[in-house]
């Protein structure tokens, strides 16, 4: 190519390796990228705006559609924010079941990441194994709530209903099986020479840059910063469980891969502790303005019937005030900033999406690399467009 001339290449939005409808305009000198401009927004549904007209319980299914690969974690973040605003705390049993659902969702999110990341780079086999195991979690979701991908199982003030004995059996089966499966993933990729050559030294981000660019979650920990909200600000009884926070050293694609692979193990460890030490008791908060009276009471007591009706169609009113609550999502810090104005709607709901901020650092990561590396780097930061565009 003539000196100083560059070629502009449009990648996406309908490109299977961009994990949704991400569009990147690349400027190439030969095959080397000299400039990259990501364009997002094709999937913008205005969830924040829609939520302003809904009551607090109605927003929960909307949050499922943010990071749809790990739906229960979004429910958890939202419910914690509302509960913080209302000043209530859910019972211990509900907190433990939320942790189980959240960690299962994290494993689901990592399954999709691992399968599609490897598929993008050319290792086709992995996706079959991860989806085989993802199916087991789908069955657990179905047993808990009736839905497989987007359970909407959590409620403000607790859970939709208590778990069944089958749920416990399914989770125990999964906990027993999954360590073998993780070893299987490792044999496919970790020491694979092609995988190593494609990922090591690619998309390096130093710890300082990662923090400055607003990285959170596994991408930040891959650069060696041990910032994990489950440890830093334990929510939903995370301080009861014994687990470790894996960190990387170099901050390249391979390190981020290893961090997520280790998170599989830590998540299954947490689920094991939670399901074996599950406390007895109610799963909904004991607050007449928030929790539904159960159906037995509704059949016999007129005031319970009225209260159920009021809670179903109106729900709790939030006091005036502002809160910020966040959870460690499968991609990073998933935060909800809620403003209450005394009504039953959130006056303003802002979703802090980890993927959105990660995508803004894409140009920094891919400039200087080849086109084939772009796909490896997009895969390694594990973005979901449903959450970026909201």
């Amino acid at each position: 190519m003539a000196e100083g001339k560059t070629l502009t290449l449009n990648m996406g939005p309908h490109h299977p390796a961009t994990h949704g409808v991400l569009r990147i305009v690349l400027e190439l000198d030969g095959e080397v990228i000299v400039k990259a401009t990501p364009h997002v927004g094709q999937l913008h549904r205005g969830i924040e705006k829609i939520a302003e007209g809904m009551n607090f319980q109605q927003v929960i299914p909307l949050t499922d559609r943010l990071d749809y690969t790990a739906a229960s974690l979004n429910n958890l973040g939202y419910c914690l924010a509302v509960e913080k605003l209302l000043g209530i705390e859910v019972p211990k049993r509900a907190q433990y079941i939320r942790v189980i659902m959240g960690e299962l969702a994290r494993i689901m999110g990592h399954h999709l990441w691992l399968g599609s990341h490897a598929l993008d780079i050319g290792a086709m086999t992995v996706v079959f194994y991860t989806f085989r195991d993802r199916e087991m979690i789908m069955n657990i979701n179905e047993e808990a709530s009736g839905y497989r991908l987007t359970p909407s199982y959590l409620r403000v003030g607790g859970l939709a209903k208590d778990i069944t004995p089958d749920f416990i059996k399914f989770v125990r089966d999964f906990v027993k099986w999954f360590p073998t499966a993780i070893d299987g993933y490792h044999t496919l990729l970790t020491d694979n020479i092609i995988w190593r050559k494609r990922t090591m030294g690619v998309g390096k981000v130093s710890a300082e840059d990662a923090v400055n660019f607003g990285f959170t979650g596994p991408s930040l920990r891959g650069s060696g910063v041990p910032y994990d909200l489950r440890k830093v600000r334990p929510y939903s009884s995370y301080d009861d469980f014994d687990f470790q926070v894996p960190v990387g050293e170099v901050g390249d694609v391979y390190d981020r891969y290893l961090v997520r692979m280790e998170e599989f193990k830590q998540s299954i460890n947490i689920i094991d502790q939670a399901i074996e030490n599950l406390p007895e008791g109610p799963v909904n908060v004991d607050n007449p303005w928030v929790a539904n009276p159960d159906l037995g009471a509704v059949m016999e007591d007129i005031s319970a019937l009225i209260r159920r009706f009021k809670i179903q169609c109106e729900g709790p009113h939030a006091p005036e005030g502002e809160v910020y609550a966040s959870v460690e999502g499968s991609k990073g810090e998933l935060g909800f900033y809620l403003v209450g104005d005394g009504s039953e709607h959130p006056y303003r709901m802002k979703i802090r999406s980890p993927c959105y901020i990660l995508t803004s650092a894409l140009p920094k990561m891919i400039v200087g690399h080849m086109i084939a590396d772009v796909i490896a780097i997009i895969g390694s930061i594990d973005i979901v467009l449903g959450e970026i565009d909201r």
Partner: protein
Amino acid sequence: MENAKIAETVKGKFGDAVLAEQECCDDLQLVIKAEALLDVMRFLHDDEQLAFDLLIDVLSIDNSQRRRKPRFEVVYVLVSTTHLHRLLVKVPVADELEVPEVPTVTGIWHAAMWAEREVYDLMGIRFADHPDLRRILTWDGFEGHPLRKEFPVEGKDFDKKWDPDTIEVL
């Protein structure tokens, strides 16, 4: 550092610039004058005891239906990865401005680049000296700012007739 101590440190350095100090559940919220925002933010980032090196989010609130003044407020969520404390910084945007505007913090945290673009796109608050202030979630040429309270939730032309050949509203 404890919330009370953070407030004390910032107030000791910028006495007049701190308009208010509020508790948002377990988080501290400081309301800072827009003129002093850059100095305060630079101090929060650089000071070794505070070291707020991670900008989590930038968001905006439209107060027009809450009967509060001023109409727009911008909130920054800051975290320190070394000391692990969190701070909410709120900046009121002066009502007198024709186009609401606050200074950009992209020079301090790169993470503000897209976060501020989103605020501009959805709420119409400009960030002075932002290097790349374009719309991001809506398309170029979109009219209005969807998160403002007067913007209809269904969109502006959802019930209008349109020409299927040109996709133009009639």
